[in-house]
């Protein structure tokens, strides 16, 4: 029983991190109709940044994390301005460009960071006894709390601030929102930056638990895409519920069915969703 509870808890912790990463994808799809295939690579880059900042340069780990996320944000802004902006309205070219970019970044990561996994230092050590049932690593508990904090921040940003209102307006009706004075280019740029920064946030949170490698990036992107389709394109709530579901299913599946096929569960869910409920759990049925 305690074993089951531990796998379940693992699933919940990973699920919350999945949700952060998926919201990043969902934000960019919702606003710009662009699927960023380089999402996983930026997640990996963030993990390596936080490792090198704290281990190679001696920055305190607590400062290295937000700094890495900020670097990813800047990279995202640069990507949007140089490569993504000219493809607006041409779905095919944006898909091709972000895919090529993912391959380029993956190879660049191999070249810069090497093929070996690197693990940033833990912020805390030891383990806590959860309700007398099982021991759980403090680092994982802290990661969980940070993730919840980030999720609350995103919900606040999108539901309560002017920026969030502008984002929702653009994703609902681009023409109308520009008529009432929303500057598209800025909203696009900032939301692309924010979207990839969330990949970065997920990356720096996960790196001390599961060290990142350049070759792991495709699985990261796929997990985020499955969550977005599962939750329904453009739904924040869907990302959270979908992220948790996928995290739990993958962890229980890996524990009780097969470790090797961890990522297959996600793909099976994707196919089932496409067959039975293509608009996802919380998406709007358009057809």
């Amino acid at each position, binding site marked *: 029983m305690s074993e089951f509870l531990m796998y379940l808890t693992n699933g919940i912790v990973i699920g919350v991190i999945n949700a952060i990463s998926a919201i990043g994808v969902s934000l960019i*799809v919702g606003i710009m*109709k662009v*699927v960023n*295939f380089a999402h996983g690579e930026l997640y990996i880059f963030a993990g390596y940044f936080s490792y090198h900042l704290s281990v190679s340069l001696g920055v305190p780990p607590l400062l290295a994390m937000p700094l890495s996320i900020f670097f990813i944000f800047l990279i995202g802004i640069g990507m949007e301005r*140089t*490569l993504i902006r*000219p493809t607006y309205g041409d*779905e*095919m*070219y944006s*898909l*091709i*460009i972000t*895919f*090529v*970019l993912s*391959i*380029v970044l993956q*190879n*660049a990561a191999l*070249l810069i960071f090497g093929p070996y996994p690197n693990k940033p230092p833990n912020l805390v050590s030891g383990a806590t006894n959860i309700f007398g049932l099982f021991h759980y690593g403090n680092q994982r508990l802290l990661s969980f709390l940070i993730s919840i904090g980030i999720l609350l921040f995103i919900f606040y940003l999108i539901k309560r601030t002017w920026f969030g209102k502008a984002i929702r307006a653009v994703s609902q009706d681009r023409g109308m929102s520009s008529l009432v004075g929303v500057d598209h280019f800025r909203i696009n740029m900032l939301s692309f930056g924010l979207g990839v920064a969330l990949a970065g946030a997920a990356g720096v949170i996960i790196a001390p638990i599961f060290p990142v490698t350049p070759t792991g990036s*495709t*699985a990261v*992107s*796929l997990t985020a*895409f*499955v969550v977005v*389709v599962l939750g329904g394109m453009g739904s924040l709530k869907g990302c959270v519920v979908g992220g948790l579901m996928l995290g739990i299913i993958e962890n229980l599946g890996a524990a009780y069915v097969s470790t*090797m*096929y961890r*990522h*297959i569960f*996600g*793909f099976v869910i*994707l*196919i089932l969703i*496409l*067959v039975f409920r*293509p608009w996802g759990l919380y998406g709007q049925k358009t*057809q």
Partner: protein
Amino acid sequence: MRDSMSRMDIKKISLPLIFIIIALFPPFFLSQYWLHVMIISLFYVMMASSWNLIAGFTGQVSFAHAAFSGVGAYISGMFTVYLGISPWLGILIGIGVAALLGLGLGYLCIRMGGIYLSLTTLGFSEILRIIITNEDKWTRGTMGLQIPGFFAEYSKTHYYYLFLVITVGLLSIIYRIIHSEMGLTFRAVLNDELAASSSGINTIRVRILAFTISSAMAGLAGGLYGHYLMLITPDIPSLGQMFLVLAMAVIGGMGSFAGPIVGSFVLEILSEYIRVYGEYHVLLFGLIALAMARFAPEGVVGILREKWRREWA
């Protein structure tokens, strides 16, 4: 009128005919090594041209093209190894399975729009890699599975002509499709989906059909490739391979018949020269493909055509 028509026909046929005649000669003067490079280039011509059929002509970006070639290679390879059937029959089964999987994925995703097809095909590609790597009892995983070749006596010249004949066959089918009524509907769908569907074209059926044909072609190319190398590994259905095919089409010129052909030869030959310095060719091709997609979306063929028009017409 009749005369001018036949003159047009002669012009249309003569150019490809010249290329085919030139293509007959390489085995007489190329070394074994460069003959190998030519055979691999022909494989990429088949891959990039059939990918271009859906991406360039119907605007749907599939990331499972390499995966379908892997399906062709592994289905055919495993049937020949474990059941002892002839590779020729194995390839037919491989094509059939690739077409069926293409039909299934196309049916599921295409009605949902382009983004879903790209996401699902990427997932399919990754899953196939995981299955092949993990089921090493049957596939021998990353070690690779040794499979028989087509000819009792190994000869690169034989393989070269086999690849040439099938490539020409595939290209003529693709040419016919894009210049047929179906090709017209492809372009109608690409240019304006709403207008096409309101003028009575079943856009979804056209796209699923194109996707199935293209998947079957990838299965054929993969099967041939496997039986030529006589060793199949999870690299065949990898995303790295997918990237090369995509880069060849993008750099050569998507949406044109000649683009992927030019791109395949240029990139495959170029990568032989770059390989000397290490595995940088992927990074380099990626950067070139990004620059092309950004500044010259019609590729090398588009640039040459523009130059030709400016200087000669």
